[in-house]
C-alpha cells in the first residue's frame, strides 16, 4: 500500500492500519509464570540460540554458525559448523533444511555432513523462517532485503517494508517470489494449500493460499507483541513464538522522526529504545519508571524491554493458551518452538540462552 493510500485510510478510519494503543495482555494472553517455571532442557552461555526443529524424533537447534543436537540430559553435540549464521531451520524428509547467511539453503544430514541445496541470491541473506509445503517445496520468509536476518531492530526503526515471501521449486531449485513489500515477515507455516505468515512489524498474523499468496486474510491483528515463528499442530491449531513485546515508549519514539534519527546515529544499536531478546548491559540500557526496583523487587507488570511469550491459536485463530516469562523473570525472547511429543512443547528463549520444555494445557 502506498504512503498516500495509507494516510488516506488512516484519515478516514483512524486505527485501522496503525493502532496507537497497545492491547493489554488479557483473555488467552493473560500472564502466567509457566515459562519461568518450565523445566530447563539445556542452556547456552552464548546467547545466540535461535531456531529449533524436530527431525527424526531428535531436536536440533541453531546457535550462531552451528547446528546443535540437544538431548534430554543437557548435552549438546555440534552436528554441523557452517560458514555463516544459521538463521532458520526446517525438517525435510529426514534431513534438516538450514538457511545460512551468505550461502543459501543447506541440507544437513542429522548424522553429519551437509550440502548446499540452493544458493539463489534471493535466499542468501535475511531468511527468517522456512516451512515445507506438501510437495517438499520450501516456502521461506525474508525479513528484509536490506537489513539482513539480524537486522530486526534496524528494520523496525527505518520503517522498512522490504520483506519477501518466497517459494523454491524442489526439482529445479528456481526461486519464485510469492509476495513483496512485507513488514518483516518472521514466521511461516504451510498445511496443504494454505499457509500462515506472521508480519512482525505489523503485529499481525495472516492466512493465505499458495495459489493466491497475495490475497490473504487477517487471522490476528494488533497483537500486543511482535509475532515470530509459527509451528502447526496436528489438530489444526498453531503455536506462535513472540520474541518481543511492544512497548509504549518505543511506539512513541518511532513516530518522533528527529529523535529517532539521532538515536540511530548516536546510540549503539543494542542500547536503542527498542525491544530486545534479553538484558545485555543493565548499566547502560534505557529504563522506564515502572521498571524501578523498589524494596529489591521489580514488579512483574513493569513495561517490558524483553519478555518471554508464546501462544497457541486454535483453528479459528483464537488465542487459547499462552506461556509467559514476565519482566521480573529471565526466560525472555522466545524465538523457536518445537513439538516433540503429544502436547509437549520445547521453546528456545534466546534472551536467557535457555531451552525449556513444558506440557500443553488442554481444557
Amino acid at each position, binding site marked *: 500500500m502506498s504512503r498516500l493510500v495509507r494516510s488516506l485510510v488512516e484519515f478516514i478510519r483512524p486505527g485501522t492500519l496503525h493502532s496507537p494503543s497497545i492491547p493489554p495482555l488479557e483473555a488467552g494472553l493473560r500472564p502466567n509464570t509457566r515459562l519461568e517455571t518450565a523445566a530447563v532442557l539445556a542452556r547456552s552461555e552464548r546467547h545466540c540460540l535461535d531456531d529449533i526443529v524436530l527431525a527424526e524424533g531428535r531436536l536440533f537447534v541453531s546457535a550462531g554458525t552451528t547446528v546443535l543436537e540437544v538431548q534430554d540430559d543437557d548435552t549438546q553435540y555440534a552436528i554441523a559448523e557452517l560458514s555463516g549464521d544459521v538463521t532458520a531451520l526446517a525438517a525435510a524428509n529426514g534431513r534438516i533444511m538450514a538457511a545460512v547467511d551468505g550461502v543459501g539453503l543447506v541440507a544437513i544430514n542429522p548424522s553429519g555432513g551437509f550440502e548446499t541445496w540452493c544458493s539463489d541470491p534471493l535466499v542468501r541473506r535475511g531468511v527468517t523462517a522456512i516451512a515445507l509445503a506438501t510437495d517438499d517445496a520450501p516456502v521461506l520468509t525474508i525479513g528484509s532485503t536490506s537489513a539482513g536476518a539480524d537486522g530486526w531492530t534496524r528494520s523496525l526503526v527505518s520503517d522498512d517494508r522490504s520483506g519477501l515471501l518466497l517459494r523454491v521449486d524442489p526439482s529445479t531449485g528456481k526461486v519464485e517470489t510469492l509476495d513483496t513489500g512485507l513488514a518483516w515477515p518472521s514466521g511461516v507455516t504451510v498445511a496443504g494449500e494454505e499457509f500462515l505468515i506472521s508480519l512482525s512489524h505489523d503485529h499481525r498474523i495472516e492466512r493465505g493460499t499458495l495459489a493466491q499468496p497475495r490475497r490473504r486474510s487477517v487471522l490476528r491483528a494488533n497483537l500486543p507483541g511482535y509475532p515470530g515463528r509459527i509451528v502447526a499442530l496436528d489438530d489444526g491449531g498453531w503455536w506462535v513464538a513472540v520474541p518481543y513485546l511492544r512497548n509504549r515508549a518505543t511506539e512513541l519514539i518511532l513516530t518522533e522522526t528527529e529523535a529517532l534519527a539521532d538515536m540511530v546515529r548516536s546510540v549503539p544499536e543494542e542500547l536503542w529504545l527498542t525491544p530486545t531478546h534479553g538484558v545485555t548491559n543493565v*548499566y547502560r540500557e534505557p*529504563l*522506564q519508571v515502572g521498571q524501578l526496583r523498589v*524494596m529489591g523487587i521489580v514488579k512483574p507488570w513493569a513495561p517490558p524491554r524483553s519478555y518471554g511469550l508464546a501462544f497457541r491459536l486454535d483453528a479459528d485463530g483464537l488465542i487459547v493458551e499462552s506461556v509467559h516469562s514476565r519482566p521480573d523473570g529471565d526466560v525472555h525472547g522466545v524465538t523457536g518452538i518445537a513439538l516433540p511429543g503429544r502436547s509437549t512443547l520445547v521453546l528456545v528463549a534466546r534472551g536467557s540462552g535457555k531451552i525449556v520444555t513444558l506440557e500443553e494445557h488442554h481444557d
Partner: protein
Amino acid sequence: MAQSKTAGLGKWGRPVDAFGLTGRPTLARFSPMRTVSDVLSKQWMEGAVPVFLAVVISLGFALSTPEILQSGDRDLILRNFAELGFLAVALTIVLVGGGIDLSVGSIVGMSSISSLVMFRAYDWPVPVILVVVVILGAAFGAINGFLIAVVKTRPFITTLVTAVALRAVVTVVQTHNAPDLVMPRTDSIWTFLGNGTVAGMHTSVAIFIPVVIIAHIGMSRVRWGWWTVAVGSDRRSARRNGVPTTRVTFATYVASGVLCSIAGVLLAARQGSTSALTGDGFEIAALTAVVLGGVSLTGGRGSVARAAVGVMVVAIIQQALIRRGAESAWSTFILAAALLSFSVLDLKWGKYRTRIADKLEVDPLRLEPGPLLDVTDENSIWRVNNHLTTAEPIGLGRIEGAEDCAVDHDGNLYCGDRRGWIWRFDAGDTTRGQIFARTGGSPLGHAWDLNGDLLVCVGGIGLCRITPDGTSTPIAVQTRRSRNKIFDDSAIRFADDLDVGPDGAIYFSDASSRIDSASYHVEMAEFRPNGRVFRYDPSNGSVEQIVKNHLMANGITTAHDGQSILIASSGLFRVDRLWISGPKQGQLEPVLENLPGLPDNINRASDGNYWMSFVGMRTPISDLFLRHRNLRLRMTKELPVDDWIVPQWNVSCVVKFTDDGMILSSYWDGTLERHPMVTSMKEFDGHLYIAGLQNNRIGRYKLPEHEIGTLDPMLTPGRLADRGHAVGSQA
C-alpha cells in the same frame, strides 16, 4: 577564627543565579507555555474573563450612547446600581452557597408595599418601619431557608413558588390599602432615604458600598463565608469536614431576605408610590448581573465584588437601552440573552481553565549533556565492582526507603522511611530498631546540628529539627516569595539535603520550587532549573535564598575548609562549590562536571575527601531524551508515568572525590541484589553506612584501611575546638 569571618554573612544580597550552568541561552529561561499555565491557575482567573468581557460590553454601550454619561443619567445609573446591587449581593450569597433565590424580586415588592403601608396608612415612625421591614425580609428568607435547608426541597422550585405566592400577597395588600397609600406625609428620614445624599452620593449608593465591602469580606475572609463556599462547592464534603451545612444554607436565604428588604425600603422611599409590579423582573436583572460578574450558577464560585461589577454593567446597559428608546421588553430580552451566553461561558471557562493550565504546566527544557563515560569500561575508575555487596544489612525488611541516614557519637544509626518515620538502630545490637520520630512528610537528608539535634530535610514540609526525645519541629517551611515569578514559590516543597556551616547556619537544597518529592518524576521529565539553595539562620529564623535557578539541587556538604559548600546538581550531572566566606564569598565554582550519573548526597570523608552517591546512572537513551524537548513533552502527555524514560535508577554507586574534583575510587553492588540505588552514605568509625531511597535496608560497609583517615566526618569543619558538646552527645 572561622566563626568571626562568617558572622558577617547575614546579608547575602541577591542569590547566585545558576541558570548559566545549564548551558542554554538566556531566551530559554522564559517559558511561554508555563507562564500561561501559571496565570490560568490563579484563583482570580476564575472570574477574570467573564468580568473583562462584561466590562467591554458595557463600555461598548456607553461609548455608542454617550448621553448616558451625562450627569442626570449617571445619577440614574448609580441609583439603579445600588438598588439592583442589594439583590445581586443577595443572589451571590445564595448562589455561592449552592442554591438559587428567585423570590428576590417578590421580597423587594413585599417590603416596598409594606413599608409604604406602615408609613402612609399607619403613620409609624420611620426607624420602627425599617426594623419591621428588615425583620419581615428575614422572615420571608427564613421560610425559603427552612423549606430548602431543613425540609430539603429543591431551591429552584421552592423559591419560584414563594415568589409567586408573595407576589399574590403583594397584590392583595396593594388592593386593600390603595386609598390610604396616596395620603401625603413628609418625614425627614424618609426623604433622606429616598432622595438625600451623603458626601455627594445618593443615600442608596452610600448604603450599598459599605454593604458590598462587608459582604465581600464576609464571604472571602470570614468563617461563615468559607463555610458557604464549602457547602456550595461540595455539600457532602463540607458536611464530612464538620461544616453545619443546614445552618449555612438556612443563613444564606435569611441574608438574602434581609438584603432584599433593604432594597425594597429604598425603592419605596425613592418612588414614594408603589404598584403590585414593584420588583417584578428584578430576578432576571440581578441574575444577569451576578452571572456577568462571574458568579457560577453551579455554586461555590463567585465573589461579591465581581457581582457588583456585573450590576454596574447591567445598570449601564439598561440605561443605554432606555436612552435609545428601546421598549422595555427589548431590555429584558437583551438581559436574558446576556444571561444565557454568560452562563455558557462560565460553564466552559470553569471546565477548561484548569484543564488548559494542567496541559501547559510541564515545559521540558532542551539540554545538551556532555559525552557519556562508559562505566562498564574495564580501564575506568568507574568500573563496576561488588564491594557494596558485602555490606552488612541493618533494619532489613523493616526500613522502607531511607534516603539518608546519620550516625551519632555512640554509633547509633538514624534513618528516614518513606512512611514519614525516623528509625533509630542501637549501636550495640542493630537488630534493635525503633521509630524515633514521626515527621509527617518524606524524610530525605539528615545532618547533626551543632547542639546535637538531628536536622532532617522533609519533602513536603521543609527543614525539621528533631530533639533527642524524638520531637520533630519544622523550623524552615517557607521563604520570601520571588518578586518576578507568577508562580507562588514561597513554600519549600522539596527540601532535599543539608549541612551545617561553621557559624551554625544551615544550608539546604530545595530540588524544586514547583513540585514536592512525591512527584519527582515530573522534574525528571522537565529538567528545568526550578531548584534552589537556602541558608537558614538559627539566630533569627530567617530563610534566605542563596542560589536560584538550580537544576535539581540535591547533595549539600560543608567543605573541609569551612569556607565553602559543595552543591550537587542531579539534573546537570555536576557538583559546584559555593563560597560562603572568604574573598570569593557568593561565587559558584565547578568541582565535578559531566558525571556519568545523577549525583545525590555528598558527605565528608575522614581522609579529607568527599563521598558522593548517585541516584542513578545516565544512559545513552536518557541523554537522547534530554536533547529532544519535543520527545519529552510528548512522553509526559501520551505515556503513563510507568512508561516514562528516565536514567538508569536501578544501578548506582558511591565515589570518593577530592577538593579538586578528582575521582579516587568507586564502590558498586554489581549483583544489583542488595544496593541497586544508593542515595546517600555516611562514614563513621571506619564504616560506610549506605542508604537507598527505594531500598529496604541500610548497608554497613567496612571500608578498606587505605580509605580511612583521622578526621571525624560528622563534625562541622571550623568547629573542631568545640568537640566537647558537639554532635550527638545527648542522643
